[in-house]
């Protein structure tokens, strides 16, 4: 069986589950909720099968043995693994806290990643490892980084929800912050969707994607009218979310999620993610760099952004210890921390260049 069939099935399941979770949050229909959970589990199983098949194919291709031949060597494979970790973490939370309302906030991140994979048209093929990536540290480094990223994604969602349920004054900085964040997420997703529908492109590289396609149907359109319209539409969307954000609060408050519980999950996922990121992302990355290039730290953009991300989460952990910072302020740090994660992973590759070879071809 081909792994891409299973991947396709799991993507489909996740996207359907995302829609159902959102419907569940809005209508609180139990059948809808149970179906969403069932679809998520089915998607996870299918994706697990796909990952195992791809692992086997990859190891056989390069004749590398199972440990080295882990399919985590390019942008596509690592994003797929991220989705897998995220869904797994979500299911654990759903069962631990017996509450599926989080689904409406966590599955969209998976949906966004899957959409990004398709829209960017990144290479999904199996490629053998270039020499720099032939290291045993690679498996540990990439795998642990992505497990940590998934934890951080969870803390992003719960941090955002925390802000939603604890703010109602529209002039409050925290309120403006979360409405803006949510708007940006929706706008980026929508703009990429429009790009996709307009161009149906097949992109060779990321450079090309950024230069020729990303937001070309909207913000970066050749027609000034479309550009202005896009910005006007975004501003209108932000205004609507800002004006009616209180409804979100009602919806979430209606499903028995307390602010304390959200704060606890945010902290717990960072308390899990931080050590894993420190060990896998920073320490194992440094050891790998040391063996491959003879320098454990070179301040290249990827490393530096990992460090910046690390500082964000150290900020979060210490901010909680400060009087007056517990609660909303640190929740904002948790949300910003995940933006740093996204930039570390995608921004550095797409916008800045570095030593790291991910998706360089």
């Amino acid at each position: 069986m081909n792994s891409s069939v299973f991947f396709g099935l799991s993507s489909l399941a996740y996207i359907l589950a995302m829609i159902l979770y959102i419907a569940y949050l809005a209508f609180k229909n139990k059948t809808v909720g149970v179906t969403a959970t069932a679809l998520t589990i089915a998607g996870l199983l299918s994706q697990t099968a796909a990952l195992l098949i791809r692992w086997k194919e990859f190891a056989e291709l390069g004749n590398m043995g199972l440990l080295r031949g882990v399919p985590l060597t390019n942008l596509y494979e690592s994003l797929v693994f991220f989705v897998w970790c995220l869904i797994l973490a979500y299911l654990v939370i759903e069962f631990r806290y017996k509450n599926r309302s989080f689904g409406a906030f966590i599955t969209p991140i998976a949906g966004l990643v899957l959409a990004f994979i398709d829209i960017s048209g990144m290479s999904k093929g199996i490629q053998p490892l270039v020499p720099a990536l032939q290291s045993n540290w690679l498996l540990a480094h990439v795998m642990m980084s992505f497990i940590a990223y998934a934890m951080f994604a969870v803390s992003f969602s719960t941090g955002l929800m925390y802000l939603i349920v604890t703010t109602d004054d529209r002039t409050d900085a925290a309120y403006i912050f979360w409405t803006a964040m949510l708007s940006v997420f929706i706008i980026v997703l929508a703009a990429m969707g429009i790009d996709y529908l307009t161009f149906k492109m097949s992109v060779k590289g990321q450079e090309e994607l950024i230069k020729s396609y990303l937001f070309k149907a909207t913000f970066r359109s050749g027609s000034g009218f479309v550009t202005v319209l896009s910005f006007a539409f975004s501003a209108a969307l932000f205004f609507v979310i800002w004006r009616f954000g209180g409804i979100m609060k009602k919806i979430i408050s209606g499903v028995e999620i307390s602010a304390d519980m959200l704060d606890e999950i945010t902290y717990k996922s960072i308390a899990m993610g931080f050590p894993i990121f420190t060990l896998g992302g920073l320490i194992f990355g440094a050891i790998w760099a040391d063996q491959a290039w003879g320098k454990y730290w070179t301040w290249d953009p990827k490393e530096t952004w990992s460090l910046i991300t690390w500082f964000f989460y150290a900020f979060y952990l210490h901010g909680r210890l400060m009087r007056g910072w517990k609660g909303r302020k640190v929740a904002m740090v948790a949300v910003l921390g995940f933006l740093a994660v996204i930039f570390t992973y995608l921004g550095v590759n797409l916008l800045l260049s570095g030593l790291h070879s991910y998706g360089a071809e």
Partner: protein
Amino acid sequence: MENKQKKNITDRVWDLFSSVKLAVVIFSIIAATSMVGTVLEQNAEPEKNIKIIMKMLRVGHDTAQGLYGFLAQLGFMDMYHAWWFVTLLLLFAANLIICSIDRLPRVWKLAREPIQAMPPELLEKVSVKRSITLKGSAETIKESVRAGLKEIGFSPAEAAVSHGVQFYAQKGNYSRLGVYITHLSILVILAGAIIGLFFGFNAFLNLPEGEQSSVAYKDRGVELPLGFEIRCDNFEVSYYGQSDMPKAYKSWLSVFKNGKKVLQKSIVVNDPLTYEGVTFYQSSFGIIPGSQGKGIIILKAVSADGKAQNIEAKVGDSFLIPGTQITGRILDFSPAISIDATGRYVSYDEQLKNPAVQVAFSGLKDGNYTGWILKRYPQTWQLPSGDRVELVDYWGVEYTGMQVRKDPGVFIVYLGCIFMSIGLFMSFFMSHKRIWVNVSEEKGGTRVVIGASAHRNRAAFEGRVEKLVGILSSGPKGERK
């Protein structure tokens, strides 16, 4: 603090540096300035960064140049080594040291202190409380409390309290020190980095096949004596199958000390060679300028009945296949052969991507034969006569490019990393757990009051207390009333 004014300056500085607030401020500044450093390309040509500024800020060349001059003055073009960035790191370290010194004694005491019995009234005040009344006699209940506490991992002490007996125990008290181990590890890593900076070096060495060197080169070609000699015996790139996708870059190296060979090892990316603290990393390769046509062609001739011989030759030379009358004369060599649209053989690259030799054979039974022998394609090695000539290597035209590094601090950095892992594990996955269990006789039963606390992950600990309650309630001797 009422008499704030009376504090002298040392106290104020101490207070500032022992505060988490300062730490958070420093986190933010380091993160923010680092971001700038990733946008501007470090140690690059001025024009490159001027272009980046023009693109980022959508300004003209002159404005960008002015801004560039300003930022360069501030050290942003090599900012991770600029005085103010290093100062930030030092402030950060000072903050960490003072903060830890300030708090450690208290935490140390908390961690060391043996647990005390607690007056029953106070038991009401701890965070986790359970109380149950059981049927059995006090003696049997005590027995099962002892067993139950063992079961959930505690070894309790006992004391008589105002009514009845109290069992109490603690666990994981040293996990409170995890945070400090984490903080200390950061200092260890910084120390290791500084040692590396002062007592180590970074250099490179491009070594042609067959040559040796007793020095490496720092920036601007400054020579750095190694204290021994290193020779590149051979260098080779291997490819995946018959594609041009590199699979491995490999150098065969020998180390000589006082004229004697002391070490021989092949290195690839991710697997360096270390001798006397100096490490050689495979980092690049290339063709020695002006070496075209000067290399040695190494062939392996094998006769049809299995006699083999290695042959070293140049273009124009002839050789004999062992045990036969067949001679081959080398007509041509190509580093990367391919066939163009008109069917001619051409070289598509200077690098040794697909090396091939053209050989004219004479003395074969059924006439002469001329053909290209390609290193990558075994089917081209076969002659019509059943003999075989294999192209092994084209030697002496490539050089291997190596990073050469000495860093006595790296060991300390790794030690710090180990500390950090241990410290973080202790901080987040362990906790200081305390439990007190009061057993007192009441009318018609025995009352058990449990008080417990954990300084972290209380929910998980509560589960264990629940388990204890379960054991007591369903135990053979005690039955819930």
